[in-house]
C-alpha cells in the first residue's frame, strides 16, 4: 500500500511537471503577448510595454521563467506590488496577471463551485445513465430499448449551451420554479445550493450520459449470462434481488474507473455549462485565463487538473479493489 502511494505520487508529479512545461512552451509560442493585455488597450507604448514585461518577469528567457516557477513551488516566491513585496508561500503556483492574486487562492475559490456542479451532475448521470442502461438491457430489442437510445442521443446531440438556455427559459422564466442559477455555498444554505445548481446538473449530466447508458447496458447483458446469476436464480432468489444485487454489482464495477476519469475531466471541462449559467467555477476560470493569456493562472490550473486526474485514478483503483475483492491494489 505504501509502495502504491509512493508510486502514484511520483506519477502525479511527473504528469504535472510535463503538463506545466507543455503549457509554458505553448504560451511562449503564442503570438499574443500577455504584457500587452495587462498594459491596456490604448495606452501601451513600446517602453511602457517593456516595463510591464519586466514587472511580470516576461522579459526573461523561457527556461528562466520556468525555473522560477518550479522553485516557487518549493520555496515560494516574492512579487513586487509597488509599495510592498507580496509573498506567495510555498506551493506557489504563481501570481495571476489579471487577478493580482496568488493563483492557488483563485483556484481554491473556484473549486467548491466546480465540485458542487460536478458532484451533483455525477450523481444524476450515474443514476440515470445506469438506470436507463439497466432498463434497456432488461428490455433489449424492445421499443423501450430503442426509445432510451434515441432520447439519450438526443440529449447528447444538442450542445450544452442550447440546453442550458432552454432549461432556463422553462424553469426560471415561464414556470419560475427555480431561481436563476447563482452559486450559494452549501454550508450557508443547502436547499438554495441545490435549487441553484439543479439546472447545471441536468445539463452536464445530459452530456455525460451516453457512455454510461451503453456501458451499463452491455455490462448487465454480459453479467446476466454469467454462471453466478444462474446460481442465484437456482436458489430461489427473487428476480429483484438477482438483478438488483448480483447483476448490477458485476455490471457496474467497471464503471468506477470510467466515472473517476470523467469526473476529473469534467471538473475543468464544464466551461460551457458554467458559462451558460454564469457560475464562477474552474471551467470558466480556465477559459477566462486562456483568453486573457494569464499564463500563471493557466499553468496553475493545468497542474491542478493533472493532480486531480491522477488522484481520481488512484481513488478509482482503491475503490475498485474495495468493490471487487479479487483485485488487489498494487
Amino acid at each position, binding site marked *: 500500500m505504501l*509502495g502504491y502511494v509512493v508510486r502514484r505520487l511520483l506519477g502525479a508529479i511527473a504528469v504535472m511537471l510535463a503538463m506545466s512545461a507543455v503549457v509554458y512552451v505553448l504560451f511562449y509560442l503564442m503570438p499574443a503577448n500577455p504584457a500587452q493585455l495587462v498594459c491596456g488597450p490604448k495606452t501601451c507604448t513600446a517602453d511602457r510595454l517593456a516595463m510591464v514585461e519586466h514587472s511580470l518577469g516576461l522579459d526573461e528567457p523561457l527556461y528562466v521563467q520556468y525555473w522560477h516557477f518550479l522553485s516557487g513551488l518549493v520555496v515560494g516566491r516574492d512579487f513586487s506590488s509597488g509599495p510592498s513585496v507580496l509573498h506567495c508561500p510555498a506551493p506557489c503556483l504563481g501570481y495571476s496577471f489579471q487577478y493580482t492574486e496568488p493563483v492557488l487562492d483563485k483556484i481554491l475559490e473556484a473549486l467548491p463551485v466546480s465540485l458542487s456542479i460536478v458532484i451533483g451532475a455525477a450523481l444524476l448521470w450515474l443514476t440515470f445513465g445506469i438506470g436507463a442502461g439497466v432498463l434497456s438491457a432488461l428490455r433489449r430489442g424492445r421499443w423501450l430499448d430503442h426509445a432510451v437510445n434515441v432520447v439519450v442521443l438526443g440529449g447528447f446531440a444538442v450542445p450544452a449551451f442550447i440546453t442550458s438556455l432552454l432549461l432556463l427559459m422553462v424553469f426560471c422564466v415561464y414556470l419560475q420554479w427555480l431561481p436563476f442559477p447563482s452559486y450559494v455555498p452549501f454550508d450557508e444554505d443547502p436547499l438554495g445550493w441545490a435549487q441553484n445548481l439543479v439546472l447545471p446538473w441536468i445539463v452536464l449530466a445530459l452530456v455525460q450520459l451516453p457512455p454510461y447508458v451503453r456501458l451499463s447496458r452491455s455490462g448487465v447483458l454480459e453479467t446476466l449470462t454469467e454462471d453466478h446469476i444462474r446460481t442465484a436464480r437456482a436458489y430461489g432468489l427473487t428476480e429483484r434481488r438477482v438483478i438488483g444485487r448480483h447483476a448490477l*454489482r458485476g455490471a457496474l464495477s467497471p464503471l468506477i474507473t470510467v466515472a473517476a476519469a470523467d469526473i476529473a475531466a469534467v471538473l475543468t471541462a464544464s466551461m460551457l455549462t458554467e458559462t451558460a449559467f454564469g457560475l464562477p467555477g474552474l471551467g470558466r476560470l480556465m477559459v477566462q485565463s486562456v483568453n486573457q493569456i494569464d499564463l500563471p493562472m493557466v499553468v496553475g490550473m493545468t497542474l491542478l487538473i493533472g493532480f486531480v486526474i491522477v488522484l481520481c485514478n488512484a481513488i478509482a483503483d482503491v475503490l475498485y479493489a474495495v468493490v471487487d475483492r479479487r483485485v488487489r491494489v498494487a
Partner: protein
Amino acid sequence: MSDVVSVRDLTIDFRTEGGTLRAVDGLSFQLGAGRALGIVGESGSGKSATALALLGLHRGTNATVDGHVEVLGTELNAATDEQVRRLRGSRIAMVFQDPLSALDPFFSVGDQIAEVYRAHTNASRRAARARAVQVLDRVGIAEAARRVDAFPHEFSGGMRQRALIAMALSCQPQVLVADEPTTALDVTVQAQILDLIHELRTETGMALLLVTHDLAVAAGNVDEVLVMQGGHAVERGPAESVLTEPSQGYTRDLVASIPRLDAPRDRPARESPAEPLMRVLDVHQHFRIGSRLTGAKLHAVDGVSLDVLRGEALGVVGESGSGKTTLARMMVRLLTPTSGQILFEGNEISAMPERRLRALRGDLQMVFQDPVSSLNPRRTIGDSIADPLRVRGESDEKVLRRKVQQLLEQVGLDPERFDRYPHEFSGGQRQRVGIARALVLRPKLLVCDEPVSALDVSTQAQVIRLLAQLRTEFDLTLVFVAHDLAVVRQVSDRVVVMRSGQVVESGETDELYGNPTHPYTKSLLAAVPVLDPELARQRRAERGKV
C-alpha cells in the same frame, strides 16, 4: 408415490437464429426419494438441459420446454414463477460444474448462503449467518466461523465447491441436482467432494441427480444410470449392470473409451538407448506477487531437472498449481526461466534472445489446454493454421491452402472447413485445429499442455488416438502434461510427477503406476475414480478410514 422427481416425455427446444435445436427429445425418468440417479453421456447430449429443466431454469430463456416435469408434487411447466421460485433452493437445490464462476465474486461466501436461507425462511440476519456457519462447517470448511466472511476468490476450487454444496444444504432440500460437480477439480479433491455428497445423502436422505460425462464418477455414486445421446435416453438401469455389462452399442463404446489405470497398454518397445532431445537442468521460475516493495515471490517451478529423450512420450502429472504449465511454457520458451538451463539438441535456449530463437521455433511447438483461448476468434482456422508457414516466407495462397487442407485431413477435420471461424467447432475439433497448427511446421518436440482435459471421454479418446498416430507419422517427441493419471498412463512412456514446483517422482510409466514410491503419487492414484461400483465403494471406505 415416492418419486420425488418424475419426468415424462420431456422435450427441450432451443430457439436460435439458425432455427430450433432440439436438445432433449422425449425423455422420461423417475427419481425415488433418497435414491441417486446418474445421467451420463457425451458433451451436448442434453444432460445439462435436463438438469436445468428440473429447476425450471429454462424459464425466460430461449428454450421451450414440453412434457411433464413434476418435482415434489409440483408440475413445473404449469407452476407460476413464484411457485417455482419457492421450490428452488429450499426443496430442490443444484450444484453447478464450475465452482469458479458459480459464486458471485462480489459477495462473501457467508453472505450468499445467508441470502439463500433468508429467501426461504423468515430467519433474521443473525440467524441466517449462524446457519451459514453451520452448513459451512458441515461441508468441512475448517474454521467456518472465521471463513464465513471470505470471498469466493479466497477459496480454492474444492472449497468453493463445498461452499456451493453448503448453500444447497442450507434449506435442507429433498433433491440435490449436481451438474458435473467435480469436472473442474483435481482427482484428490474430486474424491473428497464426491465422498462428501455421498455422506450427506446417507445422513439426510435426500435424493441425488448426478450429471456427469465421467462414467467412473457415476459408478461410485449412484444407484441407477441413465445414458443419454442426442437428447434421447439410450440405456437406463442399475449402475452395476449398465457400466459393467452395457447392453447398447453406444454405451459399450462410451465405456470402452474411458481411460483406465488398469487397462492393458500396448506401447511399442523403444529402441534404447535414446539420446536426450531436450535437457532441463535445475530450472526455476519465480513469479513476483504483490508489489515490488513487499516483494513476495512464488516459486512456480522450483528446481526441475529432466531429460526428454528423442522419440519418447514423456508424461507430466500433478495437481492444479503444481507448475506443470509453467514448466511446459519454459520448455518451448514462451517463458524465460528465472534460472537454470534448457538445452535443445545441445543448444542452450533458456536465455537465447527472441530473434535467434525464431529460427528454432519451428522445432518446438505446443498444444494448449484451453481450446477456446488458443484460437483467435476473429480469424478463420485455416488462416490460423497457415500463419506459421507465412511467417516462414510461404506466400503462395494456393500452396498454403493445399498444405493446410492436407493437414486438416490428417487430424481428422473436414478440409472444406478451412474458412470457418473457431466458434463453429466443438471443443474436440478445436483441439484438433490446435494440433494441426502445432504440426504445420513439422516440429521435433511437441509439448501438449493438458490437451484433453477440456474434452469429454469419447473425444478425449479420439484426440489421444490421434496424437499416438501422429507421433509415428511425424516422428514426434512428445511431452504430455495432464492432471488425469489415467490419460497420462495411456499416452506416455515415462512419467514425472510434480508437486509444488518440484518433481517428486519419475520413472517408466508401468513401473511408476504399478509401484509408486512417493506417498503423494500413492494418494493421487488412490483418488482416481474406478468404474466398478463395488470397487469404488471399497475405495471410499478406505479413504474414509485415513
